[in-house]
């Protein structure tokens, strides 16, 4: 397992993600600059949160055209692991690596707070080891996080088990009150049909260290490490 974190101009969660990946994998993490096309042998590619290229057009719309993304798209096509968080998720949707789109929150406001998540499928590289009743407290911080897909796509996602996380209440129930942005089917994270490309709006890297008094997000990184060990 060799982790690489892509850095776009405007990425601002890259350092946080690198710190957590180093801590959970015990290995160095490669920084991949947006203008490079060489993924330097990384097996696991991470797209961090932030405002790539300022996100003035539409979140992720410019990033998908960057040189590094052409390599990431090939990596994904070859079955390689790709994980996008927040802006990373938006970029994956814009790139077509994940279905659907992320629209403005129904509140029309940026929203930064802790929310609760439950796994939608226990057998993926980011949820392995979690239980059906697992509820994770994880922060969100986004203005465009409302997951949207057309009915057919949504039905496919549900049937195939591609919904990896849903927003829920503290005790695990699904409700509109517990859905912070109006996402369809309470979707907080999904994967592609090949189960190798993942995206989620909440930030597990912001709750993975003891000194932050919340380590719920660590389960996501532990799942990734564990599934990397078992699939190699």
């Amino acid at each position: 397992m060799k982790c690489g974190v892509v850095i776009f101009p405007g990425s601002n969660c890259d350092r946080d993600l690198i710190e957590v990946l180093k801590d959970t994998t015990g290995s160095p993490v490669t920084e991949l600059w947006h203008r490079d096309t060489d993924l330097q042998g990384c097996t696991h590619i991470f797209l961090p949160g932030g405002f790539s290229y300022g996100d003035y057009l539409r979140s992720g719309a410019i990033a998908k055209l960057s040189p590094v993304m052409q390599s990431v798209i090939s990596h994904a096509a070859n079955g390689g692991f790709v994980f996008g968080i927040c802006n990373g998720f938006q970029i994956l949707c814009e790139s077509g690596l994940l279905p659907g789109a992320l629209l403005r929150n129904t509140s029309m406001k940026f929203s930064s707070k802790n929310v609760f998540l439950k796994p939608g499928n226990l057998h993926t590289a980011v949820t392995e080891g979690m239980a059906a009743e697992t509820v994770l407290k994880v922060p969100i911080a986004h203005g465009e996080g409302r997951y949207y897909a057309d009915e057919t796509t949504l039905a496919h996602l549900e049937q195939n088990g591609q919904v990896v996380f849903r927003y829920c209440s503290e005790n695990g129930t699904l409700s509109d009150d517990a859905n912070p942005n109006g996402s369809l089917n309470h979707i907080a994270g999904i994967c592609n049909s090949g189960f190798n490309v993942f995206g989620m709006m909440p930030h597990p890297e912001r709750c993975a260290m003891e000194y932050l008094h919340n380590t719920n997000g660590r389960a996501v990184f532990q799942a990734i490490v564990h599934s990397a060990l078992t699939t190699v």
Partner: protein
Amino acid sequence: MQAAVATVDQARQLGLLEEEYQKICEILGREPNFTELSVFSVMWSEHCSYKNSITWLKTLPREGSRMLAAAGEENAGLVDIGDGLACCFKIESHNHPSAIEPYQGAATGVGGINRDIFSMGARPIAQLNSLRFGNIDTDRTKWLVKGVVKGIGDYGNAFGIPTVGGEVYFDDCYEQNNLVNAMSVGIVPVGKQISAGAGPAGNPVYIFGSATGKDGIHGAAFASKDMSEDSISDLPSVQVGDPFWEKLILEASMELIETGAVVGMQDMGAAGITCSTSEMSAKTGVGMDVWLDKVPMRQADMKAWELLLSESQERMLVVIQKGMESVAEQVFQKWELTYEQIAVVTDTGRVRYFMNGVLEGDIPAESLVLGGGAPVYKREWETPSYFAEIEKFQLDAIADINPAEARVAALKLSAEPNIASKRWIYEQYDSMVGTVNQSTNVPSDAAVVAIKGTNRSLALTVDCNARYVFADPDKGCQIAVAEASRNIRVTGGVPTGVTNCLNFGNPYNKEVYYQFKHAIDGMGKACRKFDTPVTGGNVSFYNQSTSGNAVYPTPTIGMVGIIEKPEHRMSLHFKNAGDLIYLVGKTRNDLGSSQYLAKLKGVEYSPCPYFDLEEEYNVQMAVYNAITNGMLQSAHDISEGGLFIAALESAMAGKLGFDLCTESGLRLDAALFGESQSRVMVTVSPASQLALESHLQQAGVAYTHIGTVASAGVVVNGESWGNTDEFAHGYNTSIGNRMNQ
């Protein structure tokens, strides 16, 4: 030299006094041309020169063993925080721009303060802000709140530095002239900080970041005059921000510093190229030859004075070690920034501005800057006439309340915008990016931010109850400092340094000047007592309504403290039902300037609460020592809304309730809602009760066992008031509901 001579009339139009025009002629040995006059007008504006405030600012304690930069000498304050690290911090106002264009005004305020931090080589890690608005129920205020909050959010969120704390007040005096004070805090290894100097002659000087346009011309002058109905015509003086560029400039600056190529760096804020070139030159006692035509421009037809005065955002001036030009240029190219060498350091001591080979201005650098030739005034003051109204106040004229009325008042007070949760506002700010915010999951009076690479933390706060300062500028400002220090102490931190943002009315108004002078006196006394030197900050005069009434004197205190060990860190939420609630400090029959009196009883004029620095200090130290000795379960400062609101906040955060018994011999309203100063509400487990009492006795501070933490109910003097949730509803939804109406 451009020949046309500028007149006294032009000087007046640019905001200069006739005597100042004469002084300029003396300095130059001739009459200035228009470009030179423009340069003097911005550098000698209140905003850049501190001409009406510096005399008093110099009386503040500005030295301390931890200080690494002399107060006001650099772009921001710098204190040693141990482990080879320094904390760089500053607060700055962006009031006038935010009053006419709230979104851009607030956004560029955030951008400017962060540039001050990273121009010193420190990577910003946390931001705070202090906001003042008028009545939340007016359409104008809602427009301002929405714009300011979105401006701060959009800029800070994209820039990627968490907003970890702040304060927001709503009072009528801010209706036309809202206040936006932004603070940024960064970390730099000791010895790696960058100075705003220029080094020896021959060093190349680069501008990098955005291109220069006509936006923000005369912004500094705009900040230095009264807000009026005509202020909307100053709209072109408001700058436009771009957080994406700022982020690139931050990363480029950090990389540039790593290369060792940087001699000095300064951001371009007020007065743009003029200010940065003259201040950097004066600091080192050198000069600069500046070729204005080389400045990357957004439009083709810019004149010399426009280039000099433009306040286009996201620009930096950096002096590079001669011979390392290509190293620097590689960094600019990597980050795809606009850059150009626009000047060279000279040994003339003069800033000389050229345009297409023509000398447009030639001025001794020293003559332009604070501490150099910039004028210094001591204005006259007189006791404000409204003090007579305050003296008329008689507590006995206000009837005390019975228990049933007290419950109703408690419900109302907990939904008052100045007391209610500000979550509608702060949830629009990314508070967790950077993974340093240790308060997200464990709330405390001061925001706690991890110092990465160590096991220590910073405790950060901004405070100013301006209603107190209005009632008594000296005592009120002492209280502002004391509350900041108290917030840090009850969080387990040691107060270390202060940055201040002094928001006042027109300094030529003698009553305003009285407020200013006496507030500074009070600040000095308190900062000495708490051993928190003032490391720098900013003065914002001319804050007033269209009718000429000044805003409340609002000397916002930004304070930085250090939490030495993780086990010292204290939180404010109740922990266990059955823990005992103690009030440390003395409650007086005092309703002075309380939110209860102002908002529920409609009393505008009442005295500042009783305050004694010695008593305050003893309470803070007694609580701090109880915390570091592991005696306490929680600690929460008692401020707006009094004891009841403090208990409610601790109960809500801990999802618990409380059973309170007010002290005998006090009015019920004063006991529950009075804002007697120097008080902290703490909880202790029954097992530690005796140890705590004995500790407090030894410390010689007053204390009262006033109640017990309950599971969910609120009980006051034996009477059930319902559940915490009933009070929490108004507290949590009041501001959001009002904003959405």
